[in-house]
């Protein structure tokens, strides 16, 4: 730790959740028609995109489509969703309890740990290199009170903790980091990446810039191939955060991944953000993070011993407090109320 005091700790803006009304409608019908009292965890899909307005962050959003479809429906829906640039999918898991008591009795810490373990294992197995979206894995616990049409819930976005934390050497708008020629090429390359349906929803990537200022966006798995000839190599991610001085949450697991997979101590990262759907380098950030040697060594130890899982954080706060959220949809779900409002 000595000598690091002068450098600020790299702080990440927590991911924020948003649940569409349709999600609760479909969960209710799944619960009533299919699940019954079966409370085994359900795999779900969340959606997010880079921040698109300088005033608001993007959210990890749950829609009706986040839940598995009921058997009567076609499975073709899932294939249509892919490639939508405004919906990068992140895998999640839902623990829906049968009682409010059960909801409050959930051991949140061990559930978070279990999800962090999955992230860690996907890094270890190389799976995260192939399908980077799994670095943004999330967890939702809920209690659906179908008598009162209210839903209690709490999100977690598990992040592996680097100990000691990474420090920040530099952070500035991308437009100040790149030369004018580089910036033009970076914008063009990112827009191509976002416009191609095969890469539009791939939220982590490599940005390489050759000595003649030509930028290329590549998949994470091409890291080896980028080791010669390139002048600059940055690790990019779709940043849901809008803040000018902090990168968003997805960078945390990306750094843990970089640190353990490629044993890098010093990395340049690129927080990709948009304006009106196009790359905005004045709004995007480029930073340089330093991860200390003991960190890398500690992670290396973990690398050799997959049983060792780094500690994790990530439960979402509700307006600054550690309380679950609650939404009442009686107005749109309660048949009595619907009948009254229709009369």
């Amino acid at each position, binding site marked *: 730790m000595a000598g690091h005091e002068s450098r600020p700790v790299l702080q990440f803006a927590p991911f924020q959740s948003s649940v569409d009304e*349709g999600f609760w*409608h479909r969960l209710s019908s799944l619960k009533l028609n299919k699940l019954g009292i079966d409370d085994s965890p359900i795999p779900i899909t969340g959606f997010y995109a880079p921040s698109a307005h*300088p005033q608001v962050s993007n*959210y990890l*959003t749950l829609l009706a489509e986040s839940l598995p479809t009921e058997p009567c429906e076609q499975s073709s829906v899932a294939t249509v969703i892919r490639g939508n640039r*405004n919906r990068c999918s992140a895998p999640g898991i839902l623990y829906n309890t049968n009682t409010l008591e059960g909801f409050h009795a959930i051991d949140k810490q061990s559930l978070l740990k279990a999800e962090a373990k999955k992230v860690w294992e996907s890094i270890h197995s190389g799976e995260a290199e192939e399908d980077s979206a799994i670095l943004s894995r999330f967890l939702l616990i809920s209690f659906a009170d179908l008598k009162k049409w209210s839903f209690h819930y709490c999100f977690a976005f598990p992040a592996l903790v680097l100990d000691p934390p990474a420090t920040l050497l530099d952070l500035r708008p991308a437009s100040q980091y790149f030369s004018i020629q580089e910036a033009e090429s970076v914008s063009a390359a990112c827009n191509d990446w976002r416009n191609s349906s095969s890469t539009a929803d791939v939220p982590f990537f490599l940005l390489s810039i050759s000595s003649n200022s030509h930028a290329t966006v590549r998949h994470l798995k091409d890291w080896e191939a980028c080791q010669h000839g390139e002048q600059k190599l940055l690790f990019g991610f779709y940043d849901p955060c809008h803040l000018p001085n902090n990168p968003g949450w997805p960078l945390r697991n990306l750094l843990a991944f970089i640190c353990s997979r490629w044993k890098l101590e010093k990395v340049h990262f690129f927080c990709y953000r948009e304006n009106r759907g196009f790359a905005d380098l004045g709004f995007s950030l480029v930073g340089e993070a330093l991860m200390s040697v003991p960190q890398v060594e500690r992670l290396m130890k973990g690398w050799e011993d997959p049983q060792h899982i780094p500690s994790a954080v990530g439960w979402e706060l509700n307006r600054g407090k550690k309380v679950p959220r609650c*939404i*009442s*949809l009686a107005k749109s779900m309660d048949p009595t109320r619907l009948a009254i409002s229709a009369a």
Partner: protein
Amino acid sequence: MVLSQKFHEAFKGTVERITNPRTVSAFKEKGVLSINEFIVAGDNLVSKCPTWSWELGEPNKRKSYLPMEKQFLITRNVPCLRRAASVEEEYEAAGGEVLLENEDNDGWLATHGKPKETKSDDEENLPSMETIEISKNNTIQSISSYFGGEEEDDIPDMAGYEEVDNVIETDAATLQSTYLVAHEPDDDNILRTRTYDVSITYDKYYQTPRVWLTGYDESRMLLTPENVLEDVSQDHARKTVTIEDHPHLPGKHASVHPCRHGAVMKKIIDVLMSRGVEPEVDKYLFLFLKFVASVIPTIEYDYTLDFDLGSSST
């Protein structure tokens, strides 16, 4: 919902079921769109303004006359930094044109603000008791209790359950309380950034697009329709903007009623043609969204203005 509105909905639904969709273009003559033209205009919107995308919606609400993967258009998480109502007050205070209240609705314009009312500028600058109270303890607590007051009656207070679990997250790398450091107007301590999901559906009866609003508060919790009406131009709230069932999504949403859309679009198209601009049908939604912006002036959705409105002769 008013009974007459219900009857109309039922009537409209029946007409929609028994009539064939429009196939002949009447875009220039009536300001309306055929289904194919709606798809063409929607594709163009999605390609020029990529924050918009096509959606499937609820499978059981799917309209067979629209392609399965192009049921409606949506742009999510659009910021709304100020309430339309407060913007109008400022405009009036600044001496803008004001439509004076009139029972017969043949309102006339006052061009230098509202005629003097009892309230003078000095009085307006006096802080009210509410703002004093908020600024006195402008901490996390005061803001959450402020929001707490807005809460639905039947939502139980979860504060009693706080800290029953053993989650202790002290982590130096987590940025604390981000929602407080969001960009907010500096002149007060109240967080006002709402966000909206704005969707455009095709209304088969009126043969025009129709706009729907789903509002969320600062922590992305659903707004009640009453709150949504604060973000609608007050000339339109509860008149042209109504709360109805969304044709593709569950729940009640605010919508700009499409009964006058064709006529308004026809007017806009006529103005363009009189200037020698030949309007193209694939730009219909840009014109349409520009017109909708007068109804929801503070919701900053994208309809990129810097496009050429067709082949201009000027």
